[in-house]
């Protein structure tokens, strides 16, 4: 990888801005030592399985259902966050109202609150004995210990991603187009969906992707609020932990590897769309 980039550099000739070598060196060195080298261990460990065993582990019914639970709940949670995150960003950028600063400041709290604490207090709230859960229990909806509970925990941990991705773009958004559209008689809603949303889309997508990926991997808060029943509310990271408790390292890393590849693919897709759209908008 290193050599390849150096070659490219030479082909292109001299770069105008100095510091390419230095920043490339530091970036790769730190990324390598702190992230990539440790990550290699997953491949090494999973490689202890034969290919057949690997496939058998990651396609066993329980594991597949674990992936499905994690993916579907995380997707739903990311959608919820995309919708509310956009509205939140819009309100924070476009409106003035008392308590705005407070609202703005609250957004990061899910990061700072340990996921275990989040899980414990969300379970406390949404169980059929809890403040909110008991209300829903009356109309026959159970939240904690079902997939709805899992989704709620994932929404919680993902709140900051979309808001903080969309907010700066919205702030910078040139209002000319919007104004032009309005002047030309477009309705508010039409303007939003046809003029503003396309501008926000790359940022929204990035935020959505991060929230989605975070949800897929979330463990700490979900284990408290999920019932952890196989085939119903067992998430993939919990399966990894269970395999570890059985001292099956290779199996655990095999499941982890698939999860990792899924997230990597997702992030790659989103980054590509972002970069593509950037080129597109500059052209």
């Amino acid at each position, binding site marked *: 990888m290193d050599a390849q980039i150096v070659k*490219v550099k030479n082909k292109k000739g001299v770069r*105008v*801005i*100095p510091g390419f070598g*230095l*920043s*490339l060196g530091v*970036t790769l060195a*730190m*990324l390598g030592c702190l*992230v990539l080298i*440790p990550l290699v*261990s*997953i491949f*090494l460990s999973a490689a202890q399985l034969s290919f057949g065993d690997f496939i058998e582990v990651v396609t066993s019914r329980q594991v597949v259902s674990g992936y499905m639970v994690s993916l579907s709940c995380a997707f739903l949670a990311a959608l919820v966050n995309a919708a*509310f995150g956009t*509205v939140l960003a*819009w*309100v924070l*950028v*476009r*409106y003035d109202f008392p308590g705005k600063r407070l609202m*703005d*400041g609250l957004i*990061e*709290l899910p*990061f*700072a*609150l*340990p*996921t*275990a*604490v989040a899980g414990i*207090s969300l379970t*406390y*709230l949404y169980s059929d004995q809890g*403040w909110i859960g008991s209300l829903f229990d009356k109309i026959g909806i159970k939240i904690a210990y079902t997939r709805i509970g899992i989704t709620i925990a994932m929404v*919680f941990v993902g709140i900051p991603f979309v808001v903080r991705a969309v907010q*700066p773009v919205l702030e910078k958004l040139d209002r000319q187009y*919007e*104004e032009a559209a*309005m002047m*030309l*008689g477009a*309705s*508010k809603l039409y303007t939003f969906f046809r003029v503003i949303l396309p501008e926000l889309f790359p940022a929204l997508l990035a935020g959505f992707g*991060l929230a989605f*990926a*975070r949800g*897929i*991997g979330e*463990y700490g808060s979900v284990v408290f609020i999920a019932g952890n029943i196989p085939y119903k509310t067992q998430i993939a*990271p919990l399966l*990894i932990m269970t395999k570890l408790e059985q001292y099956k*390292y290779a199996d655990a890393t095999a499941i*982890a590897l698939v*999860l*990792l590849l899924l997230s990597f693919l997702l*992030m790659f897709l989103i*980054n590509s769309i972002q970069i593509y759209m950037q080129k597109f908008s500059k052209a």
Partner: protein
Amino acid sequence: MSEKTKKAYETEETADGLHSIQKVIEPPHESSRPIIKYLLIGVCVLFLAVMLVIPLIVVAVNAFSDGWAAYQKAVMDEYTLKALWLTLLATVSAVVVNTIFGIFAAYLLSKFYFKGRQVLATLIDIPFSISPVIAGLVFILTFGNIGWMGDFLKAHDIKIVFAVPGVILATIFVTFPFVFRELFPVMNAQGKDEEEAAALMGANGFTIFRRITFPHIKWALLYGVILCTARAMGEFGAVSVISGHLRGKTNTLPLHVEILYNEFNTTAAFAVSSLLVILAVLILIARNIVEWKKK
């Protein structure tokens, strides 16, 4: 955003496209009807209340359910203070390392075009998308007894996992992309024309960064540092795998919370959690002050 416009201004729904000229002269963007405005604000308040504020109230209510004395006792406990110290140590380390990395990586990816740029950007994001459980596991598989570096470390009597360095490494790992993620879009949006011009005029790399790039990114940088701090303080999953739960040695605050909860000491658990909430709020207040000064 800063310009204040007349709130009195209102538009009618203009399906027929008949805007009077006078209205056009006034800036139309603050023109939303109060109903929509308050509806949207209401939606946000409700969402944040249900998802965020009420859970925090649960923490507070439980923390003080046995009174102020019990709260004080839980917070001033010897092990709580030790855990607080370790949390701060890990957080500071993570912020320092990730800030250095974030600046270099964002500079690299925004000012230079080279093959593999996309792949590199995605690789940097991995810790974001990785399950914290896997993040902890990764270090065990590398530096632990069963890891491929285990024998080497043992021979040299270096302890990483189930010791403080492991906790720090795991914290750095999970917060790795935070500063980068904040800087990259800003640097990218700024483009590289100014830097190129400066370079052509003969400025050296450090000067270019200090005089041209840095002023553009300082708020984003600060913001990244704040996010990184918040996330590092709250990290639970990865640290829990790697710490060994040694009381007074490798327990961070979030782990201490879990231990207290498992000891049926719910009040103390929530009291210690509230400590984390307070720390987070302090950081966010600091950020607001800085932001205010900026204006």
